């Protein structure tokens, strides 16, 4: 009986495509995303006032007054090499008693943490493996120099090109 064959075949097909009871999902998976970015998307340069507002907050843990920032802006405009004049201003900041820096001991004893913390503090990102390795090696190779201290590392980060962008 062909009709029974068709019915049997249809039932067989329905058996394989039938709906199934949904499983109860008790926990959701989350796509892992790094909370610190990389340097590829930093393409907007900070204004002089933004730059020094962020920098002084970073170094002194308190913001500068708008008068100080405006004065600093004028001085930066008065010099053709912005990186150079920023370096001079940074060394001026470093010469005050209010600047808050890690100790040399911390830098030498916990170099990897110091490097990672410094990248996060200034660049809002973690260092790549290559960057971390370079800095750890550089700090270790500079141990013999008694004048090599966190101030120099902080000054380099503050005066770097990446720190001028966001």
């Amino acid at each position, binding site marked *: 009986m062909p009709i029974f064959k068709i019915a049997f075949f249809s039932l067989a097909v329905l058996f394989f495509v039938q709906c199934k009871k949904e499983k109860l999902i008790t926990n959701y998976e989350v796509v892992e995303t790094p909370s610190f970015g990389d340097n590829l998307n930093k393409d907007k340069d900070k204004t002089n006032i933004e730059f020094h507002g962020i920098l002084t907050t970073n170094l002194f843990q308190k913001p500068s007054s708008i008068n100080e920032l405006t004065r600093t802006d004028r*001085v930066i*405009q*008065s010099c*053709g090499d912005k990186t150079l004049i920023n370096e001079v201003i940074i060394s*001026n900041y470093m010469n005050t008693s209010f600047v808050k820096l890690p100790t040399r001991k911390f830098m030498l004893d916990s170099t990897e943490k110091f490097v990672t913390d410094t990248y996060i503090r200034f660049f809002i990102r973690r260092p790549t493996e290559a960057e971390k390795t370079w*800095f750890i090696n550089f700090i270790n190779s500079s141990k013999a120099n008694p004048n090599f201290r966190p101030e120099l590392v902080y000054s380099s980060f503050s005066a*770097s090109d990446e720190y*001028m962008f966001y």
Partner: protein
Amino acid sequence: MKRREFVKKAATLTAGSLVMPYLLPSGRLFAKTNAPLAEHVVYVIFGGGLRQQDSILQRYLADSQDFAAEGNLLHNMLEGTPPTSKIAYGIGEGGTQPIPKILSKTIQKQGTIFSEMRAISGGHYGGLNSLITGSGVAGQGLKVRPINPTVFEYARRFGGFKATDTWFIGNSIGNSLPLLNSSNHPDFGLPYGANFFAPNITFGSDGYATLQNAKIYHPQEELEPMYKMKNFLDNSFNIKKGDMPGIRNTDDERTKIKEFISNTFVRQAAGQLPMPPVGGGDGATIGYAAEVLRVFKPKLLVVNMSGIDGCHSNFTGYIQAMHRADHALGFLWNYIETQIPEMSGKTIMCFVPECGRNKDHNPIMDANDWYGYDHGDANSLRVFGGMVGPNVPANLMVGNEANPIGKVTDFNLTIAEILGYKSEVQGAGLIDSQAKSLFERI
């Protein structure tokens, strides 16, 4: 060597020799195209808008205030007897005491004056742009770098000079002046730009509060590791040329400029800076320019003055500023010739204002009831300029009211000729097509 290999290598070498000079920000591979006429150029923008009638034509009040008093206010620059009445251009109460002359022999006697030249623009920024770029482009916008390369970029790219060989000393940070040390031109730009200071800010009260307490780091033990770390960070970031916030000096140059900043505050406090006897305003700018010359002995230094622009509302202040600017110019030339042995006899000084002033006065009267003058009409395109130094004909006056000779855009090409790369600047095709070296105009 196989023929194919030979042809390939020859082609590579030829292409390399053509391309390499344009890749290098400093240092040149070819001999200069003309023999240099001097080793250094100091280019003074005698600016702010200098009215021809009151300056080189020596008509004093006769052609401005309808009062019969004529005479020369620029006694370091020009020959001519001073006014004998209504003396108000000097110093002291009422400006009645002319400033004593500095030069025993006027610039006119020592060099060549182009007594009737033509400016490109009757405005400041357009005028400054034409002086700095040698271009006839009048549509330059404010708050943007020049469209065409500046005299500094030509000097660095074609002359092979480093950043500290080229300086622009501005009298303020207004009027987009800090943007004139480099253009936005894609083939030139900031990699070839000049160092810039507006010393009244950098070394004024703002600069003192911001820079004076800067640490002096040890060059080897502190600066060297700092530069190494910074260079590593910069290489990782790889900033694009168009994003550069300013010009770049090498590490050695940066160290030297930092020392200069620090020493300038010390010498300022000790009263050791070379200032004109009558200072203030433009005089101070010229004094700091002299200090830059003393320390760096640059190949090219451009300095801007603008005190005379007070003429819009104060004619008395204008003639006083004009007299002081002449004093400052005389001081600068005297300082180069007598106090900087490395530059004495090897420097050509050029000078010109960026524009003139109107023929007719505006309605604003000053304390002497003298009318002010704006700028922008045809008369404000009338200017005079000149040069002095080795290979410049002495005691020569070129052109007159009836026979104008020279344009302000000539100075860029003149500087190129003095420093030995004129044909390269001409070949770049970015200057005023009618511009000539002033040596060709003589």
